[in-house]
Structure formats: C-alpha cells, structure tokens
C-alpha cells in the first residue's frame, strides 16, 4: 500500500508542476490516444449536451457545414446519413457540430441548421451549435467534415477524414475506405484502431478571426 501512496503523491506533484509550467495552447490540444477534451454545448433545440452525458459509450463527432461542397458530397450521396445510422445501430452516440461563427456568410441559425439536417434525413443524436468555436478549437477541427471517434473509456481513438479519397466528387465515395466505419468496428471489438489519423479534407471551419 505504501507503493500506491508514494506513487500517487509523486504523480500529483508532477501533474501540478506540468500544469503550472505548460503554456496554454492557442488552438487544439486533443491528441489521438489521449483523453478526449470534455465539453458542453447547446444543441439546435436549446438543450445543453455534454460529453460526460455519454460516459461509457462510444461517441462520434462530426464537424458539419451545409455550405461546404465536401459536406454536401457526403450528404447528397447519403453516405454520411448511412454512416450515422449504422453507428447508431451499434449504440454509438453521433454528435454533429457546427463551428461556423455568426458573422460568416454561410452561417445558419440553429433552427435552419436543424431543418437542413432533417431534410437530409441525417440521424445524429444531437446537432451542437459552436458559434464561438470553443469546441472546434479544443478538438483542432480544421475542416468540414472532420471526424473524431471517442471510445467508451473516453479516449480519442480516431481523428481525421471520413474516408481516404480527398475529393469533392461523390463518385469517389464508393471505392473509398470509410475511416469512421472502420474505427468504430475496431473500437467496439476492443481492438486498437488501425488507421487512427488521416488527412482531414474539406472546407476550412469558419472560426471567427
């Protein structure tokens, strides 16, 4: 037992030291393999949704922006909706997030965004509004779409593109490997994720300057 006490003491001191000495990052800190940053955001119906609400469940984060042709590539072809539905069937929580700032030309108010998602037949558990970009910056979301998979233990196990064909052409979806489907299958089977990061492609997330 003294082993535990001594080691615990040491780790507390180290953590304190690290916390005091590390500079605050300007953008992003989420790293694959580490704990996914906790967050709390409002969804399109005004409800507060936190990552902690889904403790013990696998969570997928999808950065979305209806104004982006790459997002539309995956929605018009029903690829994103199919990925969402297959994830939900496995008990995975899917959160769609929009980090477009209010002054951007393609900003959509919560009701409009919810309406678009409904029209598309999208099936996320919630669509979160992140107009101040806090959530996007915490995760280092750069593009729309940008996909993250968080496993049941709260670790980030995948960050990157939805598939491995970085184009705007819907015809490329069929032959591409869907990284999210693959990461979910591996995580739910308790296996390590084989492709844990990939080049996210799409339009840049419209953060405020």
């Amino acid at each position, binding site marked *: *037992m*003294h*082993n*535990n006490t001594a*080691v*615990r003491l*040491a*780790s*507390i001191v180290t*953590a304190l030291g690290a916390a005091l000495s590390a500079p605050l*990052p*300007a*953008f992003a800190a*989420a790293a*694959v*393999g*580490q*704990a996914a940053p906790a967050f709390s955001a409002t969804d399109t119906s005004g409800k507060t949704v936190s990552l902690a609400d889904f403790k*013990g469940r696998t969570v997928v984060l999808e950065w979305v922006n209806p*104004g*982006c*042709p*790459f997002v539309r590539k995956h929605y018009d072809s029903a690829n994103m909706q199919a990925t969402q539905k297959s994830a939900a069937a496995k008990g995975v929580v899917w959160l769609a997030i929009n980090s477009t700032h209010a002054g*951007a*030309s*393609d900003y959509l108010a919560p009701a409009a965004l919810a309406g678009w998602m409904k029209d598309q037949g999208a099936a996320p558990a919630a669509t979160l509004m992140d107009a101040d970009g806090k959530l996007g*910056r915490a995760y*280092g979301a*750069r*593009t729309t779409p940008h996909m993250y998979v968080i*496993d049941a*233990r*709260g*670790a*980030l*196990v*995948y960050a*990157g593109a939805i598939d491995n064909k*970085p*184009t*705007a052409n819907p015809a490329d979806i069929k032959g591409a490997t869907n990284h999210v489907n693959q990461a979910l299958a*591996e*995580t739910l089977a*308790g*296996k390590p*994720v084989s*492709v*844990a*990061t*990939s*080049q*996210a*492609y*799409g*339009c*840049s*997330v*419209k*953060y405020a*300057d």
Partner: protein
Amino acid sequence: MRLLRTLLAILTLGSSLPTLAAPGTVVTTDQVRAELVAHAPQGVVAGQPIWLGLSIAHQPHWHTYWKNPGDSGLPTTLQWTLPEGVKAGEIEWPTPKRLPIGPLVNHGYDGKLLLPVRVEVPAGFAADSLPIKLHAEWLVCKDVCIPESGDFALDLPARAAWSPQAAAFDAALASAPRALAGATASASLTDSGLQIEIGGLPADWAGKAIELFPETAGVLDNAAPRQAAWNGNRWTVTVPLSDQRFESPQRMDAVLVPAGGAVGSRIGFAIAGNWPKLAPAAAAVPAAAPLPAASTAPPLGLAAALLFALIGGAILNLMPCVFPVLSLKVLGFAGHAHDRRALMLGGVAYTAGVVLSFIGLAALLLVLRAGGEQLGWGFQLQSPAVIAVLAALFTLIGLNLAGVFEFGSVLPSGLASLRARHPLVDSLLTGVLAVAVASPCTAPFMGASLGLAATLPAAEALAIFGALGLGMALPYLAASLWPGLARTLPRPGAWMARFKVLMAFPMFATVVWLVWVIGQQTGIDGAAALLATLLAMAFIAWALGTPGIGQVARAAFGVVGVASLVLALSWMLPAFQAAASPAPRTGEAGPHWQPWSEQRVAELRAAGKPVFVDFTAAWCVTCQYNKRSTLANAEVMADFAARGVVLLRADWTRRDAAITAALAGFGRNGVPVYALYGADSARPPQILAEILSVREVRDALARL
C-alpha cells in the same frame, strides 16, 4: 418561311455543335479563368522537352492551393492524356503564399498563377501535332469553397513554334523555388517538435524572418507559432508536430521564403530521432488520473523497509493464524502477573523465539532459493505434510486447553518438569510456534519488504526478516515490559480454568482452517483422512493424558488409539501422496475465473484484452477473505464484465514454479497479489492492495 428558319437553325446548330462538344483551352467560372497553355519555342521535337501548364486567373479574394494545402483545402490536380511515349512530369509549383484564415493556415495562390509541367517528347516522335487533353480539378475558396474542374484540349502543332505565353512561363519557372546552393539542413525530433537547422544560407538572409512551408502534408502544425533563431548564417526553427499527424517520414523537403522575398528556396533534410508513437492503441490514460502503481516495487531504502517490516509484523498479531497462539500467552500473563521479572524475561524470550524463527525461516528460504528452488514466502505451507503436522499440533493444544488431557500425564515426567522449570524455553518455543503459523498470512506492508529482501545481500535480507519478527513480538514484549498491564489482569482463580477452555476454541477454529487447506491441496479424501488422524491422536491423548483412569484401562485405550492412528495414517499418507503428484493446480475454473498461465496472459494482452489476475492460495487467509468479499461483490463483477476484463486465478496452494516466478516479477514473494493489466500491452499492470476494497477495484477499472 418556317422551313427556311428551321434550315437556318439546323445549320447554325450544326456549326456550333463541334465547338460545344470539343473542349477548348479555356474554362471560365465565376471564380477563375483557367486556361491550358503550352510553351514550345522550337515546336515539338523528338528528344526535346516542351512545357505545358494550367494558367489560373483568380477573381479577387479567391485562392487555390499548393501541393501541401495546409489545414484545409486540396491541391490542384492535373490529369494529362497524351500520346504513347509522351510523358508529363509533376507540377513545378511556384512559391506558395501563407493564407491564414482564423486560427487555421493554408498554403496557396491568388491573383495570376501558372502551374508549369515539363513534358518529355520521346526520341521517335515524328507526328505533325501533339494532341493534348487535360482534366484539371481545383478547389477555389474565398470564405466558401467551390470545387471546380475543367476539361481542356489542345492540338499542338509540331513543326511551328508555340509560345504565346512565353513571358508567363518564364515568370512561373522563375518563381519556382530553387535549390539553395551551399545550404545544408538537418532535422531532429525534440519534445517541442521538429527542430530544423539550416546552415550556409545566403548572407542577405541573415537576421530576417523566414517562412517555412513543408512540402509533406500531415506532419507539422501549420498554424502554431514557431521558435526561430539565427546564429551567424545558421538558422534554427522548431516546428510543433501536428496533433493529428499521420505521417512519420525519414526525410522532408520544405520551401523557405525570407521576409520580403517573393521567390522561395527549396531545402531537403533527413529527420533524426524517433517519431512519437502514432496514435497508440485503444487504451487511454485520462490526463488527470493518478499514475497506476508500478509493477515492480519502487526502490525502498533499507531503513524504510525495516520500518515497514516492523509495522507489518505488528499487524500479523491480528491475523487469525496468530491470534490463538497469542491467546496462549495472554493466559500466561494471568498466571504470572505477580512476578514482573518473570514476565519481562518471558516477553524477551518470546521475542527472541519469534525473531530467531523469522531469521531462521528466512535463512532457509534464501539458502533454498540460492539452491535454485522456486520458493516463495509461505512455502512451508505448500506442503500437506507440514499442514498436517500443524493441524495435529493445534488439535493437541486445543484439547489440552479444553482439559481433555494434561501435558503432565502425557509427556514423560522429566519433560514436563523441564517445561515448568524452563518457562523461558517455553516462551521461546511459543514464539517459534507463532512464527510457523503466521508466516503465510502476508499482511499489508510485508509484500514489498519481502520482495526487496529477496534481492538484497543476505545480511540485509535477514535484518529485514528480523525486523518483521520484532514487529510481531512487539505487542507482547511491550505488554510484558509494561508492568501496568500485568497488574490490571485479575489474580489467578477459578476463572482461569474457564478461560483456558475458552481459548481452546480459537485453536480448534485454526484446525478447521488447516483442514480446509488440506482439502484444497489433497481433496476431500485427504481432508477426511486428516480428520481421522486427528481423531485418533485426540483419543490417544485422552487415553494417556486424562487423569483418573486405571493403568490397565489406559494401556488398553492406548493400544486402540495407536491402532486407529495407524489406520488413519495409512489412509492419509497415500491420499497426500496422490495429491502430491504434480499437475499443479494453477487455478479453479468457474463461471468467471479461468486458470492462469503466463502464456494465457500474453495471448490476451496481445489481443488487447484487459486482464485481472488473482494470485491466491488456500492457506492464505487474506486471499480467502478478499475472494469472498470484494471479488464476490456483484458491482465489482459487473464492472469487470462491462470492461471485458478476463479474470485469471493463479493458485499457489501447491508449489508452482511458474507462479513463484511471476510473483517475483512483481517484486513480491507471497500472496495475495492482484494484478490488473490494461488493454495497452506497453503499460505495466496496476498492482492493487493486499486487502481489496470494492472502491479500489472499481477505481482501478475506471482508470483502465
């Protein structure tokens, strides 16, 4: 009239059809004007290169991307369709511009851009013209992005000069980054990122801020600020790595653009050092959680080890194995309360007995270990014979206390008076007895001390065991030296007889436990055989030791007793032998628990499954307590199931070299040991405390 109009329409339609169907050299959109251009001042000559390219004129505020587009975007792609043998090279990208957008950074172009491509004309080329087809795709963005594409075609006449955009080509080729003559570059991976050192830079660059564009995407962080410094004509910059890095290249190229310069320079460098592991496997360490306990005992100073050994020894007195023996000594107090000196000496003798026994046992352990035996602490209780002897001893003591026989009647009178005349020897032997039974009960604090002791030089190891003994004897020693305690005890009287009988019961309880251990080791037959033996012994003890029986009767009973003892032994010994044959029980299977083996653990860890190993033994009371309390707790089992933890049990009740070695691997020498392996096979297991609490197990599982 209508016919004429129709004919006219058909004619115009006919004449416009070819232009509608065939792509030209220009594609115009609302954002760009893209044109397929060529530069062949000597025409298309066999063996001579020509230049082709895509010229993009961006509308104001719109931009396209470089080969490494940065945080978002896609580079322009060109797909050429050329005749057989005509090979188009890669795009000679002009020097890019840094395009910040909020917290993100892209690399690209705006205004007028030409992307030149060198085309090799094969030696045997003899055609009149070179048909060129191009399918180009580009992503053009302002604040919104529009992916666009165009199909272009051009028939390049072979024998005439073709260079309407000569100036544009010259400018584009001039603005392509050039190799920096005389510059040397190297890079190494540090904690804060990739440190790139470039020497031999042009003199007029010195002191200037330099923009560095990596040509490989997905490695470096594009937006984070970079530390750069000049040292003479050496420039060093540290670039943080991308938090979603998916490449670990050995070499990289980059374009350097000094402040105020328009044309960049290309530099290549090898990367030394190890890339941080790309996305480790599924297990996570929550950043705020405390570190898991190390699998090897952290280095203990000798003083600390001695202190812990002392405390551990003291706690041993509370263990059910020791308490009955201690109760004997408590009885002794009551008898000698008036004689303080005798009490003190008795206490010292007891202490001596305990300490010497511990040291003796330790010495034996070390000697046997040195001889190569896979032994651990408690090893003496892995032998059924030893347990049977102890059970017999306790039975006799219990019967004596209960009044079934008197030692005086059983033992030769000489021996009995020896005992009476040498109470010190009696105390010493009680101490020895206490140690013999206490040793397998590994108390908290003992584990690490013993593990350390096994690795120390003999003198220090024995010192630690001696400290353990001292700790165990301490309460009794303190009591015997403290006169107050002796005086608080009531004077001897009739109550003593009843007290004596009362103390028999803990003795018998210990016998029950020992019988159970034998049962674990040798099966129900062995346990029953032992009980029969004990019964026979009890009968003999009564026959020989109870006062008030005539000599003849005594002799007769004695013979019957001895005969039944022989019978019982003849049953017990073979039962023990049968069970002694190796087939080491490494653990009972059950609905939840599987038998442990080193190989099984390795298999499960390789498969990324978390594993919980319970190193236990039937003779270890702490283990049994944990087994029946915490490890049977419904919530704990549910937690195990929820996390897919495989439960393995390593049963050390009988000698098992593999388990002994595994325990040594944790720096431990005895049981219980509870090891929780996470799914990440690179991390050592968490070792839990010896007395498990539900909270501790659940917290440990949560930390997985």
